[in-house]
């Protein structure tokens, strides 16, 4: 990607400007992630490295308690993967836009594209078109959100050392995940799936290796599919989506 010319493209400024408006939210989220990582007992260097490598707020926050309690790597992986499954859906959406790029560049873009990038991009370019303009817009968007996130995460890591453990600031990470969870509870099926997941996570808590999380995911998915089978209106909606 010849970045020197992307900088000058008018779409770069457009992408940067639109992202600036949500940078406060991105930054606050990064601050929470930074504090949570530090409070979880990762050293400052590791916490910052994790943030730079992973760049995935919710998956990072969900993985933290598991890392602290010494869950096996594959369970941490599976959990982070499931939390970030929405990006699998998004990546299917990215495909038509990025198809003309080589694979290395596609992956490079994929690392940087977070929720807001996707939403803003799809709003600006409803149809795949001028690749240069799209890349320039993406670059502007990404530069601002990446810097806002990383700077605030590092600030959070540093601040966390100063704030006493008792204040329970690490809990802010759980609260953030709680908010995301609440946003996913949109209908009867999702409520039921969530209740099943909660019960399964409790009931199977005694299992070793945090397998209770895997059990909860499997149970909730099974119940969700069952509800969809027995709820005709939902199914019709899903089927029309498939057709489109």
């Amino acid at each position, binding site marked *: 990607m010849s970045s020197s010319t992307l900088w000058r493209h008018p779409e770069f400024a457009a992408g940067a400007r639109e992202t600036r408006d949500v940078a406060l939210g991105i930054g606050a989220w990064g601050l929470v992630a930074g504090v949570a990582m530090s409070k979880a007992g990762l050293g400052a260097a590791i916490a910052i490295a994790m943030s730079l490598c992973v760049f995935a707020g919710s998956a990072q926050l969900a993985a933290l308690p598991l890392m602290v309690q010494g869950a096996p790597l594959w369970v941490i992986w599976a959990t982070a993967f499931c939390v970030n499954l929405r990006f699998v*859906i998004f990546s299917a959406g990215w495909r038509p836009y990025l198809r003309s790029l080589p694979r290395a560049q596609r992956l490079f873009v994929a690392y940087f594209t977070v929720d807001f990038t996707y939403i803003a991009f799809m709003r600006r370019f409803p149809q795949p078109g001028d690749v240069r303009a799209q890349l320039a817009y993406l670059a502007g968007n990404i530069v601002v959100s990446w810097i806002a996130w990383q700077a605030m995460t590092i600030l959070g890591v540093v601040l966390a050392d100063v704030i006493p453990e008792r204040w329970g600031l690490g809990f802010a990470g*759980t609260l*953030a995940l709680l908010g995301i969870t609440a*946003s996913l509870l949109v209908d009867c099926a999702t409520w039921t799936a969530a209740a099943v997941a*909660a019960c399964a996570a409790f009931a199977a808590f005694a299992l070793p290796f945090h397998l209770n999380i895997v059990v*909860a995911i499997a149970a909730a998915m099974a119940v969700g599919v069952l509800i969809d089978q027995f709820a005709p209106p939902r199914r019709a909606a899903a089927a029309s989506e498939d057709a489109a």
Partner: protein
Amino acid sequence: MTRGFFVIPDREVPIPGWLREALRYAPLAALVAVIVPEIAMSDGHLVGTWKDARLYAAAAGVLVFVTTRSLLGTILAGTAVLLALRLGLNW
């Protein structure tokens, strides 16, 4: 990984319909399974007391989210309740 999932292969990948339906519930389930023990369990047991600041912080967070749909507000309200109960009442 997840963000790149469908841009990795060069050719189109078909997804069966039932799997796509099931995947709708996976993120929700993973989140619930992670946060429920964080909020309501300690040392592997359901908390036995109502004097646990985390319960009220979570309730405040949900309340704020339901009324304002603001993630930032959720975090701030929950943290405020947690701090007040921890420092004020020593819960």
